[in-house]
C-alpha cells in the first residue's frame, strides 16, 4: 500500500489568461479526510483553481505539488467530473471500460469492474444503452461511475449539478456522499450554498481569485469571518 498522494500543496500559484490575471496568487493545502467545498460566485475563479489542482492547466507562477513524485501515478489516483459530462459515442459501459483501459486495467477485468461501477450509481440496467442518449442526470451519474471505477484517492467535481434539475441533483449528491463515506477525498466546486452545507465538511471561500476564508462548514455559515463571505451568504440567502 503506497503512500497517499495527499496533501496537495499550492504554493503562490497564479494564473493569467490573455494577460488577464484570473488568480493573482493562492497558497493552500488540501489534506486527506474531510470533504472540501470550493465555494464562490460565478467568475470567482473556482473552475480555474480546480483545473490547476487536477493538472489540466499549468500555473503561470508558483507550484502545484502532490505528495508523490511520479506524475503518472498522480494522474491515475485522482479523477475529475465536469459540469457537463462528455461521453464517447458508445455504450454507457464502454465509456467506463475506456477509462479502465487508459488506466492500464487488464482486458479480462475491465467489463466486470465497469458493471460494478455502474451498479454503484444505479445505472446497471442502462449498461448497453448509447451513452449520449441518456438524460443529463444519467450522464452525470455515468461520469461519476467512470471516475469511481478507477478508485481514485481524490475526486474533483466542478459544479456537477449546476445543469441538472432538483431530482437529478439529489441523485448525484447521494452518490457523492456514498463515495465520501467509502473514503474518497472529495473536492467540489459549487456556488450553491445548500449543496455546500449538505455535502461539505470544510469550506474554502474564493473571492476574485483569492482564498478569502477557510473554515469548517458550520462555522463558515454561522460566523463568516470575512466581509466578502458574509456578503456572499447574505446575497444567496436573504433571510440569514
Amino acid at each position, binding site marked *: 500500500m503506497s503512500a497517499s498522494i495527499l496533501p496537495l500543496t499550492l504554493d503562490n500559484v497564479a494564473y493569467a489568461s490573455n494577460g488577464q490575471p484570473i488568480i493573482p496568487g493562492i497558497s493552500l493545502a488540501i489534506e486527506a479526510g474531510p470533504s472540501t467545498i470550493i465555494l464562490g460566485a460565478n467568475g470567482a475563479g473556482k473552475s480555474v483553481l480546480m483545473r490547476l489542482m487536477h493538472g489540466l492547466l499549468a500555473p503561470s507562477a508558483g507550484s502545484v505539488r502532490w505528495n508523490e513524485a511520479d506524475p503518472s501515478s498522480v494522474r491515475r489516483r485522482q479523477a475529475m467530473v*465536469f459540469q457537463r459530462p462528455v461521453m*464517447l*459515442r458508445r455504450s454507457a459501459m464502454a465509456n467506463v471500460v475506456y*477509462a479502465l483501459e487508459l*488506466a492500464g486495467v487488464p482486458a479480462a477485468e475491465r467489463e466486470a469492474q465497469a458493471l460494478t461501477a455502474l451498479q454503484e450509481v444505479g445505472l446497471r440496467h442502462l449498461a448497453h444503452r448509447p451513452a449520449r*442518449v441518456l438524460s443529463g442526470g444519467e450522464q452525470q451519474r455515468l461520469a461519476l461511475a467512470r471516475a469511481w471505477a478507477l478508485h481514485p484517492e481524490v475526486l474533483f467535481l466542478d459544479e456537477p449539478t449546476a445543469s441538472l434539475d432538483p431530482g437529478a441533483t439529489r441523485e448525484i449528491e447521494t452518490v457523492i456522499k456514498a463515495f465520501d463515506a467509502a473514503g474518497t477525498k472529495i473536492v467540489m466546486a459549487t456556488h450553491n450554498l445548500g449543496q455546500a452545507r449538505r455535502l461539505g465538511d470544510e469550506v474554502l471561500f474564493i473571492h476574485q481569485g483569492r482564498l478569502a476564508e477557510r473554515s469548517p462548514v458550520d462555522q463558515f455559515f454561522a460566523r463568516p469571518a470575512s466581509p466578502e463571505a458574509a456578503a456572499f451568504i447574505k446575497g444567496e440567502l436573504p433571510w440569514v
Partner: protein
Amino acid sequence: MLSAIAEGLQRVFALDRELWRIVALSLEVSLSAVLLATVLGLPLAAALAVKQFPGRRGVIVILNALMGLPPVVVGLLVYLLLSRAGPLGSLGLLFTPGAMIVAQTLLILPIIASLARQALEDAWREYEEQLRSLGAEGLQAALTLLWDARFSLVTAVLAGLGRASAEVGAVMIVGGNIDGVTRVMTTAIALETSKGDLPLALGLGFVLIAIVLALNTAAQLIKEAAQRRFG
C-alpha cells in the same frame, strides 16, 4: 432537350459492356483515391486539430487554399512527375489507372484533410478536457477523437468523393483517355461532347449523376443507422 436526354439514356444503355467498363473504372479510380486520401488525410487532420506547433496556422491556411487547386493543374504537375522524362518516370505509371489514382488522391487530399480538421477541431474543443483528465494524450487522444467524430468525418470523405467523381482535367492529362484502358465517365463525356454527340454525352452525364447520388444516399443511410445505434 428532353428528347436529347431520352435518346442519350437509350443509347447509353445500349452500350452495355463498354459502359460497364467505363463505370467500373471510374469507381475504381475515384474510390481508390478517396481511400488513399482518407488514410493520409485523417491523421494529418487529427494532428493539426490536437497539436499546437510552430507554423500550424500556416499549414492550415495552405491546406485550405489547396482545396481550390484546379484539377487540370494537378494533372499537369503529376504528368510532369510521372513522364519518362520526369523524376518518377521509371515507375511507368503514366497513361495507366495508377496515374489517375495518384492525381486524384493529390487533388482531394486537401479537401478531406481540411474538412476533417475543422470537424475534429470542433470535437476536440468538446472532448479535450475530459480526455486529458482521463489520461489520454497525443496519439491515444487523436485516435479516440477520430473514431468518435466518425459521423462528421463521413461528410468530409463524401466531399472528396464528389470532387474526384466530377473532375475531368486531371484524369484526362495523366490517363490519356485511352479507349478501353483509361477512359472514365468524365473523360468519355468530354470526348462525346467534343465529337458533337451531345445526346450521348448527356446520357453518360446522367448515369454519372445517378451513381454519385446512389453512393451519397448509401452513405447517408449508413450514417443514420449508426447514429441511432451509437448516439
